[in-house]
Structures are given as structure tokens and as C-alpha cells.
């Protein structure tokens, strides 16, 4: 099997660029809006699944005024940046704060909400301020304003670690479990979220002077229309009525919720182009150290899971072949179950569910356990097939020579089986390394997680492209090596 990586790259780029090269939209095409659904009270779902919230009401009204239907789709927070830049969505919203850095790559309408960050903890946990978090682990959403603030202030407050989540729900789950001591995020969302949860408490306002706005692509044709509509809606008092509806009070007259303010602009009006967006050298150089950190974590996790999975798999294979019947049935069940269960599901169970029975693993070890358990099941089948491929005569000759079971396995069977199993084992190793990327859902700073964080902070998808190149750089040689081995072993069958 020969992979032409250039062809693959072309297809990927075509896929990314498709929305941009498609024909200009007609005026009554829907405005596609991406939102990180679950971000209360801005955009979330009511019990029948309808999207509701402050920003949902706002964009629906804007659509109405512009005479365009609005189509809202659910996009994770850190995916919004690439989506808006590639034109996959027209507008991104999720209480996105305006930053200079983001303005280099995207455009914002005028802000409509002045916000700060906040610290949320479990009530009665003894933590009442940021000072209490010295040496503790804190949570934030990947690439959010809270993440940016926490990263900038990590040294000042002595946070042991910033653990990065894909939204409020999983972060709060870990706060409740106690794996992290506090969650740094937008104050309005957390005030709203903790309103009916007496075990949680917003203990500190972190003044960051954040201003929320709708985010659009730099070359967006509707940016001015949308911004003008927001001005009209503010003058009519509609926006402040939304504040009343969702927060129970009107915003003060001086805030951007109540009055029209200018649209933020960058000093230099960068014009959208492909290279600036996907292959931005400045962004790459800035985020490169983060990616290397992530790569290191990925490799550590991969090697640990591969080695542990090999040992587990060998033991399971020998048990399945030669143990007492009852043990064989159990081993078979183990192998079947863990080859059927999606790794992501297993990982989430291990990380979020096991703490309720008293087993609380760090993201790294949760990921290592999940990967090992699954890799062990696959490895066991590979070893079993390898051992079964050894002719019966080899076993009989060993027995007739009076070799013990151990000597037979170590000196005769396994050395021959290894040759058979090396190609499939290497394939399995490649899969394990790729699967480490799933660990980003349990807030582990692997290569993918670092890349998504970097792209959200820089509001530029270059780190993702860089991560893809890094994955390729060390997996492609392995893939080619396996292909070579398979060819060689096939040729050497006659030996």
C-alpha cells in the first residue's frame, strides 16, 4: 500500500476551502451561525431541544431585520475560529471576547456585553479567593478568555496546572468531583449556571474588562449590515430587554449593552488569504513551543500505553490459548468487550464516572489506562493469531525434546511468532499513538489539545495544520516501515 501524501493534502485543502470557492451567496440564503451550545445563558437547549439564550434571540432578530433566515449549528468553542475563517459559518457566537490577537485574524461587530471573568468553586471547599489556589489545579475552557487570563497569571497566583476543557459541563463535573479546585470562566455564564446549584459558588470576580461581540470572517460581506442592525436594536432597547429577559435586570446605561459603540478595528487591515490563515509563520513560531510540549505528552502517553498493552496482550493471549476453560471464557469476554467499546466512551467513563466509586485518575493516567485496556485486547488477538500460525509440529518437537512449557514458549514458539506479529503490532502501535488525540477530551494537554488551544488563542488554524504535519512526520515513517516489513515477510515466506 503506497500513500501519496501530496494527493491527500490536496483533498484536505479542497475540503477546507470548498465554502470559499463556492459561488457567492444569494441574499435570501440562510445566515449560518455557529454557537457552542451549552454556554448558558447565551446559547443552550431547552428540554425539547430548541436552542434558546441571549445570543440566540439576538441573531434571530438580526436575521429577521436583514430578511434572511438564520440557521444555527452547534460548534465547539475552539472550532468556531477556523469555521468562521474558512467561511463554513457566517457568524460565530459564544460570548466570545474581543482581543487584539483575535482581531488580527477575524472581525468582530460592536460589543453588546461588558463582562469579567470569575472563579467558581464548590461551596465549603475552603477556597474563597484566587489566593487560595496556590499549588492547586484550576480549570478553564480551551482557548477562552478565562484560559488566556489564567495562563497569563499562572505564575502570579501559583496555579499548579491549568486544565483545559471543552466547555462548562465537563469542567464543572471535575470541579464537583474535586479533581480541580476552581473554574475560571465568564462571570455571567457562571452566575446563571450556579443560580440553582447550592453546592457551587462564584467566589471572585476577575476584572478583565471583556467585551462580547459576534465574530465574523475578515472578508465577511454582511459584517457592516449585522453591525448596523445591532446599533438599531440597541437604540430600540431590544438588546437591553434581552438582558432583562436573561439576567433579570436591565444593564446600566454606560455599558455596551445599552448604547451604540464603534466596531473594533485592527491597526492594519489584514486581507484574508490562504497562507495567512492556514500557514501563518508568525502564529506557528509563537505556538511551536506549545506544540512541542504537546508532542512530548503524546509520545509519553503513547509509549506507556503501547508497552503496557503489549505485556497485557501477551498475557491475555497465552491465557486464552492455554489456561483453564473458565479463565479462557473470561479472557475471551474481556477481548470481545474491549474491542467493541469505542475508546472515547471508555475514556469518558474512566475519567468522569470512576471517581464516583472512589477511583480518581489524572487525565494522563485515565488516558493511559483506557488506551492500555483496549490496546491489550487487540494485541492479545494479534499474539494469538501469531502463535496459532506456528505449525503444530513445532509444539510437538518441543514436547518430545522434554522442554518445559516456559522454555517451549520462550525459545521456540514466541521467537517465530514475533516475526508474524510485528507488522500487525506496529499497525496497532500507530493506532494507539493516533488515539492519544482522544485524550484531549479529558483535559490532557496532548498535541491535539495544545493545537486547539493555540488556534483559539491566536484565532488562527495554523497550529492545527502544524499538528497534523507533526503527526504525519512521525507516523508516516512507521506506516512506510510496516509496509516494507510486510512485503519483506511475504517474500521470505519460503524460509
Amino acid at each position, binding site marked *: 500500500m503506497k500513500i501519496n501524501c501530496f494527493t491527500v493534502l490536496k483533498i484536505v485543502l479542497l475540503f477546507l476551502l470548498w465554502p470559499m470557492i463556492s459561488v457567492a451567496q444569494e441574499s435570501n440564503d440562510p445566515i449560518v451561525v455557529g454557537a457552542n451550545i451549552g454556554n448558558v445563558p447565551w446559547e443552550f437547549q431547552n428540554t425539547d431541544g430548541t436552542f434558546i439564550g441571549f445570543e440566540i434571540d439576538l441573531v434571530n432578530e438580526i436575521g429577521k431585520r436583514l430578511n434572511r433566515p438564520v440557521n444555527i449549528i452547534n460548534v465547539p468553542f475552539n472550532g468556531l475560529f477556523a469555521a468562521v475563517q474558512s467561511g463554513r459559518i457566517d457568524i460565530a457566537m459564544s460570548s466570545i471576547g474581543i482581543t487584539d490577537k483575535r482581531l488580527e485574524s477575524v472581525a468582530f461587530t460592536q460589543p453588546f456585553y461588558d463582562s469579567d471573568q470569575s472563579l467558581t468553586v464548590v461551596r465549603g471547599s475552603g477556597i474563597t479567593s484566587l489566593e487560595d489556589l496556590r499549588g492547586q489545579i484550576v480549570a478553564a475552557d480551551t482557548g477562552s478568555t478565562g484560559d488566556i487570563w489564567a495562563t497569563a497569571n499562572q505564575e502570579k497566583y501559583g496555579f499548579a496546572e491549568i486544565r483545559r476543557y471543552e466547555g462548562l459541563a465537563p469542567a464543572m463535573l471535575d470541579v464537583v468531583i474535586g479533581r480541580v479546585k476552581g473554574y475560571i470562566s465568564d462571570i455571567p455564564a457562571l452566575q446563571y449556571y450556579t443560580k440553582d446549584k447550592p453546592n457551587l459558588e462564584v467566589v471572585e470576580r476577575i476584572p478583565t474588562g471583556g467585551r462580547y461581540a459576534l465574530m465574523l470572517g475578515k472578508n465577511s460581506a454582511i459584517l457592516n449590515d449585522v453591525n448596523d442592525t445591532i446599533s438599531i436594536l440597541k437604540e430600540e432597547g431590544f438588546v437591553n430587554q434581552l438582558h432583562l429577559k436573561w439576567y433579570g435586570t436591565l444593564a446600566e446605561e454606560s455599558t455596551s449593552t445599552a448604547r451604540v459603540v464603534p466596531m473594533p478595528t485592527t491597526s492594519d487591515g489584514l486581507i484574508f488569504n490562504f497562507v495567512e490563515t492556514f500557514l501563518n509563520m508568525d502564529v506557528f513560531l509563537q505556538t511551536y513551543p506549545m506544540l512541542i510540549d504537546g508532542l512530548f505528552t503524546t509520545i509519553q502517553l503513547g509509549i506507556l500505553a503501547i508497552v503496557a498493552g503489549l505485556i497485557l496482550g501477551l498475557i491475555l493471549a497465552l491465557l486464552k490459548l492455554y489456561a483453564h476453560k473458565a479463565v479462557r471464557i473470561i479472557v475471551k469476554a474481556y477481548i470481545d468487550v474491549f474491542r467493541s467499546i469505542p475508546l472515547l466512551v471508555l475514556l469518558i467513563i474512566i475519567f468522569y464516572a470512576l471517581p464516583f466509586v472512589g477511583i480518581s485518575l489524572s487525565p494522563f493516567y485515565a488516558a493511559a489506562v483506557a488506551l492500555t485496556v483496549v490496546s491489550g485486547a487487540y494485541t492479545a488477538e494479534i499474539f494469538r493469531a501469531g502463535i496459532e500460525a506456528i*505449525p503444530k*509440529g*513445532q509444539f*510437538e*518437537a518441543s*514436547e*518430545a*525434546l*522434554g*522442554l*518445559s512449557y516456559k*522454555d517451549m514458549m520462550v*525459545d*521456540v514458539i514466541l*521467537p*517465530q511468532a514475533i*516475526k508474524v506479529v510485528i507488522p500487525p503490532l506496529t499497525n496497532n502501535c500507530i493506532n494507539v499513538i493516533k488515539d492519544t488525540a482522544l485524550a484531549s477530551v479529558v483535559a490532557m494537554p496532548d498535541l491535539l489539545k495544545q493545537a486547539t488551544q493555540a488556534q483559539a488563542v491566536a484565532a488562527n488554524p495554523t497550529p492545527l495544520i502544524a499538528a497534523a504535519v507533526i503527526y504525519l512526520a512521525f507516523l508516516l515513517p512507521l506506516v512506510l516501515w510496516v509496509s516494507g516489513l510486510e512485503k519483506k515477510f511475504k517474500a521470505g515466506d*519460503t*524460509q
Partner: protein
Amino acid sequence: MSTLIKLETVNKHYGNFRALTDIDLEIAEGEVVCVIGPSGSGKSTMIRCINLLEEYDKSGTIKVENVKVEKGRNLKKVRADVGMVFQNFNLFPHLSILDNVMLSPIKSKGLSKEKAKKVAVDLLTKVGIAEQADKFPAQLSGGQQQRVAIARALAMEPKALLFDEPTSALDPEMVGEVLDVIKNLAASGVTMIVVTHEMGFARQVADRVIFMDAGQIVEQGSPNEIFDNPKEERTRNFLKAVLNH
């Protein structure tokens, strides 16, 4: 001469199929016994029971040097006492010729590497293949491989050797070299049971010939008795079929 191997009412079933029926057999020390008979008559099954590569029915008994052949602690001693040479050689393809022969002295007998190597080189010389010691099995002809397999079996210094159709997988021109090695062993007084289709060989080296059919020992006696004056109809039919062509 004392009895080395003793089979008493040995039966063997594969499910409902009876592969061996009431086998009684005694092999004396130093005796060379050839077992002949049609395919599927149970010849191989019988000798494979002697070192428990096949399990036999509980009702019977096999003893080697008065030690019962059964699973458990005794089995190691039995297998050290009884060497086996297979139809398909079953050399270990990942080990050199020398390592193939050295493996069991080191692992089963606990010999040092140096001693095992000396034993192996001597045996390879005996079977005429010492100059190939560093090659791998795949680099040797079938006849050479089988001679290595014989050396490997001898390396445990067994009291008896079992040969399971040792020349059946060989090209005709290589049969001779293997039979010559076995003949030399026979002359040196090694106890042997040889399952074979080589009638000329059996007549020449056997002290006793056993004819089996349908899982039973039909007839046994000296080569002259069996080949020249067979008493049983089935023996006569078999010999007529194999000799007249």
C-alpha cells in the same frame, strides 16, 4: 534382556472412532522394531502415545522403564528417555543447525553451553553433517534436515528412539542417506521403534516386525517370518500390494 517399553491393553478413541484396539506390546532394551501396515492403521498413533503426544484411554497402561506415561511430574523423565524423529523433521527454523541440537541438552538436561556444543558437534559428525552446523534448516536438503533431526533427538541421550515415518516426506534420492544413519544407530545397539513403508529397510535392520491394521497388531515376528511366511490373510494382502509393483 530387560523390558524397556511396555504397552498393556492400550486403546485410543477419537470421539467414537477407535484408533487403537487392545494393544499389548513389549520392547526389550536394544531391540529394533519396525512397524508396518496400511495408512490409517494406527502405527503413528501407537508410537505417539509412548511419549504422550497423543493421550490414550485411561483403561490401558504404557510404561517406560517402569514409569507410567501420564501427565504430571513423570512425563519429563519419560520424554527425556524417549526421543522422537518426525516425518516432517520439525526442526526449529529460527535456530541454526547447531542451536537446534544444543537446545534440549541445555534446557532439559541443564548442560553448560560448552558441553552442549561438544555433544552437538559430536552428534552432527556422527550423522555426517558437522560442516553445516552454522546454517539454518531452510538452507539444507530434506535428507540433511532429517539427519539433523536425528542428531537432535539423540542429544538428550534417550534410552529409546521413536521414528514416525522418517523417510516419507523425502525425495527418493535422499531416502538412502537417512536410512543409512538409522541402520548405523541400530547396529550400535540403540533401542528403536520405526514406523516405516520401506520394506527392504525393515527386513534388513529389524529384530522384529509388527504388522498393524485397523488399530490392531495383526501379526508380529522376525523379518523372515513376516515377509516370507506371513500367517495372516491381511498381512499377505498388504505385502502383496506393496511388494508387487
